[in-house]
């Protein structure tokens, strides 16, 4: 039973960190309607930025992370302005492919200039696990989950502010927002910037948990499962979806991997995506759009 609880708790904590990775995708989809498949690469890029500032320049983490956040905010703004704004009105396949192109470009760019070998990013989180009643809890995941919850709650609160209200209006209807004087372009740009900032949080935590290299961009896959399950435009969905994906992705492989020889986590994630799409395409909390001829 201890084994089960260990899988359950660590799975839930990882799931919350997946939710943090997924938050950026939701922020962008919510306002712009663009599925950002480059978000994995943006997380990777953030981790590289933090690594550059902290290890190569030698700044303290308290400075390195905010600096990276500023850079990624600008990166998000620029990506939206230069790439995505030109794609308005194009078929969805073009937009998906564009973000994948960005993903491939970044995956070449960062390791190309900084070396492909994994780099360690030390956030000062101890390696020793916390032991509660015989259950080993990974300290990195625990802090990660706490930050993730904080970030998600912050973004929920943000949507209550004046700017957040504008973003919500934009996410509801672009044309109506325009007609009441909201700059839709600016709102979409800001949501890209915010996604960049959330990528920094994800990059710092995942980078410290598994090292900084291109494999960070593969976080995209679980993040997609989270947003599909939770609903592409729901922040609550990210929280619940993250917990479910994390728990299922930890408990099921925990018992199945020894039987079939590994790798069932990807299978569980795939099945979650497939099952959600076939049963309830808009996810648990997603908005359902009605289509007319």
């Amino acid at each position: 039973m201890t084994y089960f609880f260990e899988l359950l708790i660590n799975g839930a904590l990882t799931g919350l960190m997946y939710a943090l990775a997924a938050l950026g995708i939701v922020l962008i989809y919510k306002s712009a309607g663009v599925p950002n498949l480059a978000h994995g690469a943006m997380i990777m890029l953030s981790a590289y930025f933090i690594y550059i500032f902290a290890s190569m320049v030698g700044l303290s983490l308290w400075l390195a992370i905010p600096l990276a956040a500023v850079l990624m905010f600008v990166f998000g703004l620029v990506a939206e302005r230069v790439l995505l704004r030109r794609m308005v009105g194009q078929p969805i396949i073009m937009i998906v492919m564009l973000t994948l192109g960005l993903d491939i470009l970044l995956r070449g760019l960062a390791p190309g200039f900084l070396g492909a070998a994994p780099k360690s990013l030390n956030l000062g989180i101890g390696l020793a696990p916390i032991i509660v009643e015989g259950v080993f809890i990974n300290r990195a995941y625990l802090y990660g989950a706490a930050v993730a919850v904080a970030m998600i709650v912050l973004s929920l609160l943000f949507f209550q502010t004046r700017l957040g209200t504008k973003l919500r209006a934009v996410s509801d209807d672009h044309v109506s927002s325009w007609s009441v004087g909201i700059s839709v372009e600016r709102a979409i740009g800001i949501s890209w910037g915010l996604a960049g900032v959330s990528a920094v949080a994800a990059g710092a935590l995942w980078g410290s948990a598994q090292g900084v290299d291109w494999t960070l961009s593969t976080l995209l896959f679980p993040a997609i499962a989270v947003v599909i399950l939770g609903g592409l435009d729901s922040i609550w969905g990210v929280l619940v979806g993250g917990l479910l994906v994390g728990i299922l992705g930890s408990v099921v492989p925990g018992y199945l991997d020894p039987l079939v020889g590994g790798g069932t986590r990807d299978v569980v994630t795939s099945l979650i995506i497939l099952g959600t799409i076939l049963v309830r395409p808009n996810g648990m909390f997603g908005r359902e759009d009605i289509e007319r001829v």
Partner: protein
Amino acid sequence: MFYRLAGVYHTTYAGERKLWPVPADRWQALGVLALAVLAPLLVGDLYLSSYLLPWLVWTAAALSLTLLMGVAGQLHFGFAAVMAIGAYTAIHLTRAGVPFEFALLGAGLMAAVIGSLFGAAALRVKGLYLVMATLAMQYLVDWTIINVPAISGGAQATLQAPEVSFLGAPMTNGTVQYYGALLWAVILTVFIMNIKRTAFGRALVAVRDKDFAAAVIGVNVFKYKLLAFFTSSFLGGVSGAVLAFCYYEAVTPEQFSFDVSIQFVAMVLVGGLGSVIGAYLGAAFVLLLPIVLTNLVAALADSGVIAMSQNLQSHIPLMAYGGLIIAFLLFEPLGLAKIYDNVRNYFLVWPFQHTRN
């Protein structure tokens, strides 16, 4: 001047239905075909087997995907998995002693049956959700192949293609392999070029343009979406088998990974969605450009013109590939086929530019 034509005017119904209304186009196509047939005499073995042959096979695969994405408008991000099913089926069938000709059919059928399962998702959702569903299926197929030793061939996970012969010609000879790939590419080209002239193709186009509207005018959307997945997966499965026997001669799961699926989508998009010549151009672009670029960068670095680390050298093709996909989508969303079309339109009336409207 080159086309020797004052305009395209149809005087008969048969003339209007011609595949190439402009005679010069027909001569061009025949000329290219003749060059392709004579290629083993014209170019060295190395170029034949490492550039021309893969180009033809990848074009065949891109054409199979064109049927689905360009003609029927269904998105597919797991096409490499479909090809993997074809490749593994063909190899297992030939190992079991089935003649290669029938193994190819078996590969196509197996891929078509499993590929239609991908289509089951298309019956329920479209657009972005279809992308995600096919992406998830790619992972499932990959995992199944890797983790079932009976399929992947045990610990090493590499399965040698047995020596077979196609219509009496041994498929281990480089020239025969090339002709095998060429034959399949030509068959597919003719098929895709003609498909829009059939009732089946027109129904697919109607579904692509708006599935609800197609249903209103009496197209059975359910049937045609599934048929599109079936046909395209059949062709993709055979292409996978051709790839395994003509090019790789052995299969491993990595040859059909998710990245390869993205490559196929990139080929179709960069070439020009739904265009036959686009599949050829797109396949050349996505497949050959990184190779050329790698060689170029390596040559430049070796000669000392530009100093760069080994590491940067090895990542430049990836950057260029991503950057070019972005550039194409931004600056020429209709792809290489549109560029070809622009050039052709220019020369169609050259030097009388004013006649263009």
